[in-house]
């Protein structure tokens, strides 16, 4: 390295944790090349999809009645599911972040479980509770409420699988809010709810927003639980992902068009979440 380059670099820091410039770090041989295998593997199929169609064909298939219905149903159910997740998830996240709850580890595991259990299994489990002869379903049935294979079931399946993403992010966000700030607000005359809305939520906002985007994206990609618990009824329970699968059996072009749309939405959501998260240094 020349002296001029050395002069351009920032002065050496006293802190030992500061890293050397990235380009100068030694790596085990081969790691650099291996690092690029996975991105290529992910990018290829994603790029293959738009190339399998033309903009004109894309537009044509997307405006078909079935596609529009699936798109609309997906948007409506995911927005509803995300709203429910946020309303019920925020209090849970706040309690986990603030209170030394008994059995916290157990609650943590329980809340995270929907991430790891197969969605199809989640769908079966939901049926066992809310189905016609289910644990709660029997009482519902007596009250004239029928849950499975309705649009409500779609939303319920989405809430089940998507909630951990919001709760994890929201909890991390609430943990960054210093309790001293909330105490200060209380002494200034703010009621607990006012403190929550004017101090806690604004300070946790980047994490909450990131959590909302992630939960929403997970709800949008939901397939297995919905399939089992809500079925695949066009216009009522057939969401974008279910429509892709149905279309694959008859009309590949529509399936490709719907897939391209899904990728666009997912990429948009991820970029959005990154933006929010980066502004606060949160891990996403």
């Amino acid at each position, binding site marked *: 390295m020349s002296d001029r380059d050395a002069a351009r670099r920032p002065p050496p820091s006293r802190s030992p944790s500061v890293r050397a410039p990235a380009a100068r770090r030694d790596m085990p041989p081969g790691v650099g090349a291996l690092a690029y295998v996975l991105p290529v593997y992910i990018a290829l199929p994603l790029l293959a999809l738009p190339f399998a169609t033309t903009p004109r064909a894309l537009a044509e298939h997307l405006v078909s009645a079935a596609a529009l219905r699936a798109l609309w149903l997906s948007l409506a159910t995911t927005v509803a599911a995300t709203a429910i997740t946020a309303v019920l998830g925020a209090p849970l996240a706040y309690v986990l972040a603030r209170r030394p709850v008994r059995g916290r580890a157990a609650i943590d595991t329980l809340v995270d479980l929907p991430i790891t259990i197969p969605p199809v299994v989640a769908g079966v489990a939901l049926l066992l509770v809310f189905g016609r002869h289910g644990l709660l379903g029997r009482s519902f049935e007596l009250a004239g409420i029928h849950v499975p294979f309705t649009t409500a079931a779609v939303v319920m399946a989405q809430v089940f699988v998507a909630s951990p993403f919001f709760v994890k992010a929201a909890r991390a966000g609430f943990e960054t809010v210093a309790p001293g*700030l909330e*105490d200060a607000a209380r002494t200034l005359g703010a009621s607990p709810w006012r403190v929550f809305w004017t101090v806690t939520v604004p300070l946790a906002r980047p994490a909450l927003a990131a959590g909302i985007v992630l939960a929403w994206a997970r709800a949008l990609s939901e397939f297995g639980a919905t399939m089992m618990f809500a079925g695949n009824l066009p216009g009522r329970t057939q969401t974008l992902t279910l429509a892709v699968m149905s279309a694959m059996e008859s009309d590949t072009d529509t399936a490709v068009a719907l897939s391209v749309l899904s990728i666009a939405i997912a990429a948009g959501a991820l970029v959005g979440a990154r933006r929010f998260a980066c502004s606060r240094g949160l891990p996403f």
Partner: protein
Amino acid sequence: MLPGIAVLMETAGTLYIDAAIGLGGFRLEAAFEVGSGETAALVGPNGAGKSTTLGLITGILRPDKGRIALGEEVWSDAARGLHRPPHERRAGLLAQDAALFPHLDVRANVAYGPRARGASRADASAKADAWLARFGLLDHARRAVHELSAGQRQRVALARALAAGARVLLLDEPFATLDVEARTAVRAELREFLSGVKLPTLLVTHDAADALALAGRVFVLESGRITQSGAPEELLARPRTPFVATLFGLNHCRATLDRGEGLREAHAGPIVFHVLAHGLEGAVSLSFPPSSVTLSAERPHGSAQNTFEGTVREVLPLADRLRVTLDCGVVMAADVVREAAAALEMNPGRRLWASVKATAIEVYP
């Protein structure tokens, strides 16, 4: 700080606290009063319960026994199950780091209290500006709080507490985040400000200088209990616990005094002091400044009535001398000029003789 501020504050009456709270294995039992317009200091080592005491006064914590009141208004009464929530108490808390809201600018921080109490946006801003003007901070109204210096942040926090209608001022280590120069300046500023304040003010600190400069009365809190209280000069003259003695740089120990008059024996653990005391008997405190202790390598044959052999534990350089901590069965500090220290080869572990004149030792109950 600024003339006329006091006029804007209502006199609230005496802050009265006689309450207890258990937190895990720790138990705090605090009982003291701070009069209207009085500044009292609450000093104590880390973990003594200072923050817990503030929590009880602000209402963030709920006592399981006793009462807290401001004037006629009862804030907590465990026996009656009464607990006013923090937002109804208006105890102005000045936290160590000022605890300004980072998502709000300076003006919105000061306007927070009036807004919380129902003022319109415009009224709250006007009120905030009035307080900022009084503290000379109006030029900074639109600034983000992280752009302010530590001293400015403390002033904004004070303005914010007063704008919220604080009826008690709780200053929690307000100088802890300031560097030495700012500390002196802010302390002087605060002293002037507090002289015009009509509210009960409690200053939490672990620095004797803060207490001496600002407080008319000092409450010493150790392991959850008030161990001594009084004017700073009183504590300085007659510290009752090793902590208070150390706070003011004195040696202290408890001893048992023999009967008699004139030169008498005081048994302090394994060693015996010879002291002058009249009209006292039984358990007493002994205190003497480090400057009254002389050290020598050999057993001294002088006029000192007290000589003890001990082991050097620590040597701390001060401006013009060394402070040597010596364990003679009772731990005591001795101040030695540098030249003498060099001659004595003062290192931890070395055995030395300490001498103290009987007349240098203060004896009190």
